[in-house]
């Protein structure tokens, strides 16, 4: 048995751009260009990057909510693309997905009891009694009371709705979950309460988790390893502590430098990153970061760097920082 529960190799997902009456494909949005990483059992692995860099598409491609264009996903020793529909259906119960927006991901016509019993009934052959027991056990953990079981999503606050989404994803006792920006839609003070719940459940259930976020502070808190994404590719990956202490990729450094400092005496801003993220339908030649990188040279503008092992982590750069 490999020490990794999940391995993603050279994942690529393109969306066709269609035009005209007959909807001819005129190009591709290269949402995920090249993503490779591995997640150990019980580990929280983060994917961080700015909006549009392909985090959600990568996450959904891994659990096949979107069909990837190329690449391999190995879960628990099995290559997912080789599984039959029936085998994939069985795997689904072990691999869950928590969406960013609790407002749209919970069916408004189902009450909490129905929302939580549905995944149990889909994946297991249980009596109504057993379903009830599992639901009661779960709501106790997420701070929802028994009389609230008959309420509908709109009767709950944003934080409570996201707790219910988490419960819905975890009630089948999966071994692996992808959480896509699970707190980004919430007020800061509520974020901490939901994150605490998620991390407690992750520990208690010994879950492996891919945590997707654009919030660098949250990522530092929650993950032991991190992959920094830019324009569909991983720029740097490795130990969260090490990367935050000393980023080696120019983009990771720029991203970390941009986080506002809460100490007013340190507000003298280092010069910020210029320009904006290029269009993924028309990415630059060579290194995707080259048009904005202060260290870019001729090779950078010609050859796309591959993700290589360097000083204890993985980095895709021709001229990494010292």
């Amino acid at each position, binding site marked *: 048995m490999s020490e990794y529960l999940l391995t993603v190799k050279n994942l690529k997902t393109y969306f066709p751009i269609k035009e005209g009456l007959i909807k001819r494909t005129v190009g591709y949005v290269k949402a995920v260009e090249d993503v490779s990483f591995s997640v150990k059992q019980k580990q929280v692995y983060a994917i961080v990057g700015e909006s549009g860099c392909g985090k959600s598409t990568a996450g959904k491609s891994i659990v096949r909510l979107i069909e990837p264009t190329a690449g391999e996903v190995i879960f628990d020793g099995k290559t997912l693309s080789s599984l039959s529909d029936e085998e994939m259906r069985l795997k689904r119960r072990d691999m869950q997905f928590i969406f960013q927006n609790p407002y749209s991901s919970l069916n408004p016509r189902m009450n909490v009891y129905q929302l939580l019993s549905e995944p149990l009934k889909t994946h297991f052959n249980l009596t109504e009694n057993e379903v009830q027991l599992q639901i009661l056990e779960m709501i106790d953990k997420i701070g929802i009371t028994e009389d609230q079981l008959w309420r509908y999503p709109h009767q709950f606050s944003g934080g409570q709705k996201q707790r219910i989404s988490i419960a819905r994803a975890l009630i089948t006792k999966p071994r692996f979950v992808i959480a896509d920006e699970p707190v980004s839609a919430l007020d800061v*003070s509520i974020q901490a309460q939901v994150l605490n719940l998620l991390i407690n459940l992750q520990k208690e259930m010994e879950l492996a988790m891919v945590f997707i976020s654009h919030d660098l*502070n949250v990522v530092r808190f929650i993950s032991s390893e991190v992959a920094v994404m830019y324009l569909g590719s991983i720029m740097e990956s490795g130990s969260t502590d090490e990367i935050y202490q000393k980023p080696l990729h120019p983009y990771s450094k720029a991203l970390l*430098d941009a986080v*506002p*400092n809460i100490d007013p005496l340190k507000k003298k*801003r280092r010069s*910020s990153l210029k320009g904006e993220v290029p269009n993924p339908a028309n990415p630059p030649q060579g290194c995707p970061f080259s048009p904005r990188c202060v260290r870019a040279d001729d090779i950078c503008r010609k050859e796309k760097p591959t993700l290589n092992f360097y000083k204890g982590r993985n980095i895709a750069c021709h001229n990494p920082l010292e």
Partner: protein
Amino acid sequence: MQNLLEIKDLKIKTLRNKEEVMLLDKVSLNIAPGQCLGIVGESGCGKSITANALLKLLPYPLSVSSGKAMFNSPSLGTVDLLSLEENAMRSIRGREIAMIFQEPMTSLDPIFTIERQMKEALEFHHAHMHEKEKHDRCVEVLKQVNIPRIEQTLGSYPHQLSGGQLQRIMIAIALINTPTLLIADEPTTALDVTIQAQILELMNKLKHEQNASVMFITHDLGVIAETSEQVAVFYSGHIVEEASAEELFYRPAHPYTEGLIKSISSLNEKGNQLYSIPGNVPPGGELKSYCHFLDRCKYAEDSCKRGLPKLVEVAPKHYCRCFRHSMEVEV
């Protein structure tokens, strides 16, 4: 008047089921020329309605119930914004006081080009400007906010531009009539960190170049630390603390401010649990007759129920509304 703006005892009410309910009370604030005042607090605390009241932009059924907002208007002299006729307000709004909102998309009209919308902002106050002069002014302010390919951008429609570019254009429109006061209501909340850093850098630069005063509203203490010299902390319709940014971050006096700072710092410490202030901001219109923070406060005592603590000076130029620092009760 030495200050550019002096808000005195602002009170805002609304109608709910035909009954008046108070949303904001006892808000007094000063902004000095060239100063950036930060306003911080969780959502629903009353930050936006305070800003909107100053420009007479409160939506029905909200209204100002009492208070003054004295503004040193370059054209009208010292005036009370809250009692100004709509006609006079029109010569101030968008010209002497400009506002930037969180969602640039909602403040721009999708069916007109950027050039048309920028010129409109200009024409409103300078009816007799020549076309060429107007165009030049548009180009000038877009340059100031670092827009690349200016001519192309002027001919674009809002949906053709990114969120970061749109927010720069909103800032350009705000600056086009060289305002003396800029009110920025969560201008970077919807943006990515690197774009947020660019916008904050830009706002700091413009403040220095134009010597404009800024009222910077945000729920993010990090953004406050990067921009503001003076900070007012709002909680449930009241100011609970006000001090210089340094004083506030290093010596917070109010338990709410302490909680806000602690919840950010705990993110930076690897630990098992994040710090969070228990409970939620109470819904608007429930202004109580005792300390509003009582049910979330870890220092709360029975005696805190004796009334609403008064906002008092607890250290030089440092004001706090809490019985731990002063026994004075608001009357």
